[in-house]
């Protein structure tokens, strides 16, 4: 069982969350020319890092906020959590 420290609600069990994938993926800006490659990178292509991975989770059975979680994809250790709009240093 993972325990995720929601920045809004505190420590909660994994059962309250749903997963949203790689948080480092950026949607291409709409008011400029976007190449097919940029769309591919946004929609399909993923690094799927082994080790520290910044990812989105939604506290769907809690405050319903999207949050960012820094987690190890080998040990499942969770290092830090952030609000969705928080910059990750």
């Amino acid at each position, binding site marked *: 069982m993972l325990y995720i420290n929601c920045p809004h609600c505190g420590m909660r069990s994994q059962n309250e969350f*749903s*997963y949203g994938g790689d948080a480092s993926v950026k949607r291409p800006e709409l008011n400029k020319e976007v190449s097919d490659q940029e769309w591919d990178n946004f929609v399909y292509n993923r*690094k799927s*890092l082994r080790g520290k991975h910044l990812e989105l989770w939604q506290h769907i059975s809690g405050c319903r906020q999207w949050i960012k979680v820094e987690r190890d*994809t080998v*040990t*499942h250790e969770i290092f830090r959590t952030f609000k969705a709009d928080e910059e990750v240093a």
Partner: protein
Amino acid sequence: MQKYSIFNLVKNAFSNHENWDLAWKDPTPKEEYDVVIIGGGGHGLATAYYLAKEHNITKVAIIEKGWIGGGNVGRNTTIIRSNYMHDENGLFSEFGMDLWRKMSQDLNYNVMFSPRGIINLAHSDAQMNAYARRGNSMRLNGIDAVLLNREQVREIIPMADFSDDVRFPIFGGLMQPSAGTARHDAVAWGYARQADSMGVDIIQNCEVIGFDVSAGKINGIRTSRGNIKAKKVGLCVAGSTNILAEKLNMTLPIETHLLQACVSEPIKPVLDNVVTFGAGHFYVSQSDKGEMVMGGDLDGYNSYAQRGNLPTLQHVLTEGIAMMPFLSKLKMLRTWGGIMDMSMDGSPIIDKTHIEGLYLNCGWCYGGFKATPASGWTFAHTIAQDRVHELNAGYSLNRFSTGHLIDEKGLGTKTWIS
């Protein structure tokens, strides 16, 4: 190579079975090969076997970081089927069914292929309609499919919950009678033994550290046991695909996820089919030892850990108990996990790459085991001829850019994110 036969079994009994040949050798890596296959799992071993058998290419090495058959070919739930609607998946898998039927004779190794049939249960009229459509598509591709009504399903699996007051009553099901199971480890060992006997070097405990690429062409690989030159390199590393892709500066339409399976304590024969729950993701069969073999959903988050967490297991088994209540009385014997190369449309990739001489075989999602022979056969063709076979032409890497996705479930991208 020593043939496995009743005659040799009797003969070796006189020497207490101490004089059997080793099934495969343990060679040190040579300096150069025509083809290097990275990954000594089912697909890699099958690829090497078909390279030697179908294309006469025997200067081949299989490079395996751990031991052969220690990854997903040793961790799956052994289901073999071709019950797909789309042509690409159906024709590819049905070609594989043919290879499965001949495999034990072909490899001189009993893979215990058991065509016991698979039933996908339907729990609504809409699902029955969808199954009728899929069944018709299958039959058009020459795959056997039978649409069963509720009573016909009850005759085959009377132990399922047929009461009327359940949340997901059984309306019927779609059956592929020729589907089944096989002994997964035997598949890896059988391919390894034959590939070895034809001259393939199976090199274990050898990690790939990097690639030697110049002017857009592959020249070899760097490993923990030295550099190896190769004219062609094939990647067959399932959940580790992204790790190697990173060394090649490639980003792929794949994420690595964790999938669990489990078996119960052994019980007397009760189920002689593979059955899947239609209102969620759960499947069950009974092994020859009597264990109920069960699996279902991914854990749901990116992971390279070959072990899972309890919430997903609980969720999956809740579905199992809804389908077959007697399962709740069984004790769990073992649970385990493996890492899946989940592609963005749920279908695999068997293709050339932008690097000359580098070939890619990945994206098997939940269905890698049953694809083992067809994957090896088509990948060997793609490598040997430097062009894709018509059976894997649809499994191209660029289909994500061109929009030619093979989206079997019709759910769009990342169907596995719940």
